[in-house]
């Protein structure tokens, strides 16, 4: 799902694919695979479900794709310790189904939940839509098991005493140290109640302030999402009445002439005249004023309702207009839909991508302004604020652009990325909040590492002496 990869696919210029795809089902088989890979200096590229958007599972110079979906066990929840062990290859939807059947939840709901795995979540430090209450995946994991590039099987201690928390050395390593096989997580009882609220603000600044105050006062909504005026107009302007709709996407092979040929041509022409001139589109931002905030609390009713009342007062104090529970309920109904909408824009010859960073509260608005200004010439930009914490939050930019031809589209895409990352970092954000690094942000990460590069390189040599583990990704060289 790496957007640049999709642009390459559209131009039929995919770089050299992997030589082999394997589906091991045990750590013993993985160890044997490592022996072969070390002997022949073959890259091992871990693969979950392929939803990553940063190119982390692309084979740059051939090698072996290690599909881990056969590590598919979901253990029984240990009710006394609130833990469960899950295989690295289990899909997100399966995790929740299995846990819900036992009365529990992991609390991890990424947009990609239907097409991402536990191993992928851990490898990229994933965040779910309820992260403000349940945390990111690195907050949920207690220990991991992995087969390192040495062939050694390691299991990190769930309570590290007298040693660093080595679990957090494998989490976020994106397969560059070893292959994750399973992990133990903290789980929670399924929340007995859920409360929905929505608001409109006259400005982004007031909405951001409302979220900040909620977290400053110790409130922990499961979901908090503030859409900027453009995003409110395009995406966040949910119905005030929840609508249950089932949409189906017709596969290309089953489409008629209109859908297959005529519609894409029309859309392409329209795109080039609109998204191809993003400065004009972005200038319209001033005509939209309202920012939509949706908030969802869940948990025991007495606690959730108290938190909701407190949050409501803080929102009103920041000048909000309460717009009922409909938009928040509507969002919950459609929360995974966006993943299935990107293809239309791509089919029309555009690029579409997302860029997520995090910043402390005192930098959030400057990051918002800087990134929008930096990319305005290259892409139509929308933003929402979510994944909030007491000390800051994530900014999630949606970036859509076009060009006269494929070469121009790709050139604009590259310039947009360079401008976006540079502006975000200069304004005080990090390079990623929950998508990871992969190939896309590798140079941006590497340029900010400083002395850490030496330590990471030395640690990598310890875990992967032959450099076979997902080479070229994260911060490493090919």
């Amino acid at each position: 799902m790496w957007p640049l990869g999709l642009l390459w696919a559209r131009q039929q210029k995919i770089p050299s694919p992997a030589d082999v795809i394997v589906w091991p089902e045990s750590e013993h088989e993985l160890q044997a695979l490592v022996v072969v890979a070390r002997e022949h200096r073959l890259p091992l590229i871990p693969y979950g479900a392929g939803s990553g958007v940063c190119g982390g599972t692309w084979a740059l110079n051939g090698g072996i794709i290690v599909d881990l979906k056969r590590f598919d066990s979901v253990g029984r929840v240990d009710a006394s310790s609130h833990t469960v062990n899950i295989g690295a290859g289990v899909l997100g939807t399966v995790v929740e189904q299995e846990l819900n059947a036992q009365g529990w939840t992991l609390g991890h709901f990424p947009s990609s939940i239907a097409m991402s795995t536990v191993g992928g979540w851990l490898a990229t430090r994933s965040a779910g839509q309820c992260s403000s209450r349940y945390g990111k995946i690195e907050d949920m994991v207690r220990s991991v098991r992995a087969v390192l590039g040495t062939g050694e099987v390691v299991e990190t201690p769930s309570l590290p005493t007298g040693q660093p928390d080595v679990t957090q050395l494998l989490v976020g390593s994106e397969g560059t140290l070893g292959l994750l096989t399973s992990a133990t997580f903290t789980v929670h009882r399924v929340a007995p109640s859920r409360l929905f609220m929505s608001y409109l603000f006259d400005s982004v600044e007031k909405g951001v302030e409302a979220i900040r105050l909620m977290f400053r006062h110790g409130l922990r909504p499961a979901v908090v999402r503030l859409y900027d005026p453009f995003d409110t107009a395009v995406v966040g302007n949910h119905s005030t009445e929840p609508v249950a709709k089932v949409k189906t996407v017709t596969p290309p092979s089953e489409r008629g002439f209109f859908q297959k040929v005529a519609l894409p041509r029309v859309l392409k022409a329209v795109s080039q005249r609109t998204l191809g001139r993003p400065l004009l589109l972005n200038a319209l931002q001033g005509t939209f004023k309202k920012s939509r905030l949706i908030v969802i609390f869940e948990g025991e009713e007495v606690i959730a309702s108290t938190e909701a009342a407190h949050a409501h007062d803080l929102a009103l104090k920041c000048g909000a207009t309460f717009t009922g529970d409909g938009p928040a309920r509507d969002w919950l109904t459609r929360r995974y839909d966006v993943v299935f909408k990107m293809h239309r824009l791509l089919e029309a010859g555009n690029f579409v991508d997302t860029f997520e960073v995090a910043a402390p509260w005192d930098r959030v608005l400057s990051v918002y302004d800087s990134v929008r200004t930096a990319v305005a010439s290259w892409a139509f930009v929308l933003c929402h604020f979510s994944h909030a914490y007491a000390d800051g939050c994530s900014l999630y930019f949606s970036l859509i652009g076009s060009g006269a031809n494929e070469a121009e589209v790709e050139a604009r895409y590259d310039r947009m990325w360079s401008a976006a990352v540079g502006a975000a970092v200069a304004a005080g954000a990090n390079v990623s909040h929950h998508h990871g690094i992969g190939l896309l942000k590798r140079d941006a990460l590497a340029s900010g590492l400083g002395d850490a590069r030496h330590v990471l390189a030395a640690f990598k040599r310890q875990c992967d002496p032959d450099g076979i583990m997902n080479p070229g990704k994260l911060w490493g060289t090919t």
Partner: protein
Amino acid sequence: MIVRPADVAALKEALQVAASRKQQLTVDRRELVFVDAITDHSMTVRVGAGLRLDQLEIVAGVAGLSLGALPPEVKALTLAEAVEGTWRGMRAVVGGRLEPMCSAVELITGDGHIISTHAGPRHAAGIDLSSLVCGGHGHSALLTSATVRLELVPESEVVVHVEVRERAKMAQWLRDTMSAGVRLDWARVHDGGLDVALSGSYRLVAAWMSFIGGLKTDRQPSTDELLLAEAAWPEIERRIETDDTLELWRPSLVSCVIRSERPAEHQASRSPLFTMLKHAADSAGVLGSPSP
């Protein structure tokens, strides 16, 4: 060799000298005690590793902020001791989760590399290098400064007595309560039940009290000399069954900081990753090795 560097540059030089002489180094960080201005908006402050937490609490209090409930033994630690020690510098938040008390760290490895992590709420930018110091007892790297997370000084603090007559059920009660969204400052286990402390806004504390039930009491935590340790739930369950005096501070679903008459029993096993990390960060062994 013992050194007391005035700043990070001096510490780096000392590490290089120790490495060239193949000597182990003991570092006294009492000079690294600066405190930057508090960033009120983000409720964070950058401080030197040698600053004691009770001193930081005073500084934070002036701005209406606090480190939150901490046992007296932890408040007496320096930031470096708190982050590098068994406590690992973690704090429990709502929902029984643990999160690092530092949103960013600056550290120096045994090999003299200075590393600063990005100050921000969370990241997905690869390996978390704060792992080099958190819980590492200074054997791979040393904390030199950190951006510390603060919280509002609570509007309300109460201690509630809860009747949980069977000791065997106390652990489950505590876990279920945290899982429901209640943040417990501390809990004291005794035969008559549990005394638990809650703090936060008036409304939150009222809601938590309503959920917990029980009655207000004025009983405070023990001021006796008790041993401090971090323990996981299997051991906490055993302690609840056996210890006469037991306090659980800022409990989480993962572990608790316990105060008890007996030391905690920890597994002696070490992850091979620890050894690899040690080689990567302190190849000359300047910072010594942990006792087995």
